[in-house]
C-alpha cells in the first residue's frame, strides 16, 4: 500500500515536470513577438528601441533553458509572474479564480454523480423498459448537445422564462445552480451509461446467480452486489470527466460571467498574455494529474483485487 502510494507519487511528480515543459514550450513557440505586444499594450509606439527595452525587462533575451529554470523556480514557489496585460500579480488573480472554478467543478461533479447514478439505476432496475429507454434517450441528448447551447437553454428556461435563477454572476449558491447544471449535463450523460452498462454486466455475473440462490431480492442484489463491483469503474470514469470539466469551464465561465480559471485562460489567449496562459495551463495540467492520483488511490480503496497486488 505504502509502496503503491510512493510509487504513484513519484510517477505524478515526473508527469508534473513533463507538464511544465509542455506549458513552457507551447508558450515559447507561440507565434508573435511578446515584447512588441507588451509595448503595444502599454500604449507606447513599438519602436525597435522600446521593444528591445521591454524584451530585456521581461527576460526574453536570456537563453531558453535559463528562462525555463527561472519560470519553473518561481512557479514552484507559487509565483507565476506579472500579467503582461494588466500588470497584476498572476498568482493573486489565480488564487481567487481557482476558488471559483473549484466551486464550479466540485458542484458539477457532485450533480453529475447523483444524476448518473439515478439514471443508471433506473435503467438497470427496469432494463429495456420505459425508464431505461427514457434515461438512454436523455443520455444521448445530453451527450450530443454542445455545452454552450445547454447553457443558453438553461438561461433561457430558468432565468428568462421562469425567472427562477440569476442568469449570470457569482454571488452565492443560487447563482451557482445554472452553471453547475450546465457543466454537469455532459458528464452526467456519459456516466449514466457507465453505470447502466456496468450494472448490467455485473448483474450477469455468476456471483449474482449465487446471490439470487441465497434468497436476496433484486434491489438488494443491485445495491449490495452489483454496485460495489462497478465502483472502481465509476470512479475511473468520473475522474476522466472531472478532468475534462476544466475544458468545459473555459466555455461556461465566460457564459455566466464567472471569473474563474477558464475565463482567465480565455482572456489570456485572446490578449496573448503568455504569463497567464502558461500559469493556467500548468494549473489545469496539475489538476489533471492530481485528479488521476486521487482516482488511483480511490480505486485502490474500492477494489480489493488491486489492493492485493500492491500490499
Amino acid at each position: 500500500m505504502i509502496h503503491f502510494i510512493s510509487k504513484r507519487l513519484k510517477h505524478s511528480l515526473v508527469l508534473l515536470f513533463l507538464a511544465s515543459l509542455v506549458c513552457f514550450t507551447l508558450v515559447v513557440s507561440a507565434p508573435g513577438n511578446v515584447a512588441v505586444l507588451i509595448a503595444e499594450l502599454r500604449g507606447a509606439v513599438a519602436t525597435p528601441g522600446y521593444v528591445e527595452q521591454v524584451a530585456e525587462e521581461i527576460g526574453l533575451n536570456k537563453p531558453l533553458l535559463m528562462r525555463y529554470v527561472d519560470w519553473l523556480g518561481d512557479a514552484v514557489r507559487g509565483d507565476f509572474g506579472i500579467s503582461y496585460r494588466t500588470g497584476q500579480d498572476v498568482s493573486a488573480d489565480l488564487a481567487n479564480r481557482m476558488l471559483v472554478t473549484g466551486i464550479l467543478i466540485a458542484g458539477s461533479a457532485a450533480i453529475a454523480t447523483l444524476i448518473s447514478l439515478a439514471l443508471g439505476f433506473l435503467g438497470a432496475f427496469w432494463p429495456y423498459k420505459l425508464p431505461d429507454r427514457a434515461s438512454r434517450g436523455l443520455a444521448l441528448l445530453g451527450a450530443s448537445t454542445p455545452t454552450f447551447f445547454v447553457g443558453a437553454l438553461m438561461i433561457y428556461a430558468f432565468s428568462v422564462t421562469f425567472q427562477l435563477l440569476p442568469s449570470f454572476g457569482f454571488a452565492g449558491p443560487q447563482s451557482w445552480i445554472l452553471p453547475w447544471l450546465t457543466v454537469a449535463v455532459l458528464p452526467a450523460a456519459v456516466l449514466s451509461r457507465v453505470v447502466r452498462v456496468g450494472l448490467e454486466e455485473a448483474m450477469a455475473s455468476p456471483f449474482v446467480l449465487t446471490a439470487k440462490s441465497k434468497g436476496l431480492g433484486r434491489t438488494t442484489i443491485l445495491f449490495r452486489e452489483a454496485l460495489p463491483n462497478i465502483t472502481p469503474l465509476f470512479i475511473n470514469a468520473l475522474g476522466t470527466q472531472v478532468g475534462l470539466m476544466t475544458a468545459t469551464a473555459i466555455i461556461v465561465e465566460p457564459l455566466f460571467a464567472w471569473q474563474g480559471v477558464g475565463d482567465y485562460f480565455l482572456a489570456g489567449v485572446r490578449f496573448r498574455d503568455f504569463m497567464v496562459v502558461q500559469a493556467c495551463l500548468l494549473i489545469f495540467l496539475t489538476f489533471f494529474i492530481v485528479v488521476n492520483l486521487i482516482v488511483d488511490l480511490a480505486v485502490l480503496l474500492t477494489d480489493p483485487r488491486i489492493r492485493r497486488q500492491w500490499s
Partner: protein
Amino acid sequence: MHDEPLLNVSNLTVNLLTAKSAVRPVDGVSYSVRQGECLAIVGESGSGKTVMNFAPLGLMPTGVTTILSGSVKLEGRELIGLPEAEIQKLRGKSVGFIFQDPMSALNPVRRIGRQIAEMAELHLTMTPRAAEARALELVKLVGISDPAARLRQYPHELSGGLRQRIVIAIALAGEPKLLIADEPTTALDVTVQAQILRLLKDVQRRLNMGMVLITHDMGVVAGAADNIVVMYAARAAECGPVDKVLVNPRHPYTKGLINAIPRKEDPIGSEFRGLPGVPPTLGAPIRGCAFAPRCELAVATCSRNRPPMVPTGDGNVSVACPVVNQGKAAA
C-alpha cells in the same frame, strides 16, 4: 407426512424461449428425493441437468422466458405456478445451492464473512453480530483452518478448494433441508475433488439433508449417491437405486456410460468417453427415442414412439426403453 418426499418432481417439462430460440431442455422427467437421501443426476453436457434443477426455483438467467409444466413439490408445496416472491423466500432457506465454479460464484469485492453472514441475517433473522458468529461456526463446520481470519478475507485470496468450502458454508447458512449441488467438484483440482465431495457427503449426513448431486463422474455417483437419474437429451433414460443401476445397467445409454468408465482405479475426474456419435441438438421435441441414432439395439418403432418410463419390477428401477423392458418380460 412422514413418507412424503422432500422433493417430488413429476413429469416436469421446461421450455426456454429466448429472442432467438425455443428449446425444451427438460421433457417429462420425474424423480424424488427424501430427507437424508442423495440423488445423483448424470448425463452428457447439455442434457438438461442444470435447467431441470434451477428453473423450478427461478434461477434462470435474465433474457430467457421459462415455461414450466408438470409438478415440483418441495415439502409438499407445489412450486410450479408459485409467484417469484414466494419462491425467493424458499431459496437459501429451504434449498441451498452449490455451483460448479467457486472461482466465479463469490462476489470478488465483498468480504467472505459478509457473504456468509447475510444469509443468517436474512433467513434466521439474526442481528449482524450474531450472524458473524454464525458465519464463524459455519466456516469451522466446513473444515477451514484459521476461520476468523478467513472471514475478513476476499475471495481471490483463497484457493479454489477453500472457495468451494465457503460456497458450501453459504449454502448451509440458512439451514436448508435440501442441497442442490451442480457439479460441485468439476472445476477443482483432482486432489481437492475428493475432499470437497467427502465434506459435502459428511454435512449432508450430519444435518440429515436431502441432496441432489449433479455430476459427470460415475465414481462420485458410486461413492456418494443413494439413487440415480440418468438423463439423455432432456429425458430420463433410467432411474433407480445406485447399487442396482450401476451394477446392472439396463438402458443402452446407461450401459454405454458405464462401459465408458476407465477400468483402472481412480475413476474420479474421468469424463464420459467411448460413446459413439453425438447427442441430438435440442430443438423441436424428438418424436421417438432420443437415443435411437446412437443405439445398437434400436428397432424401427424406436424412432416412432416415445418410450415411456416403465418400472422394471427390480426394486424401484425404471427404464425408458421398450426393447429392454420387453426383453426382460419375455425372458
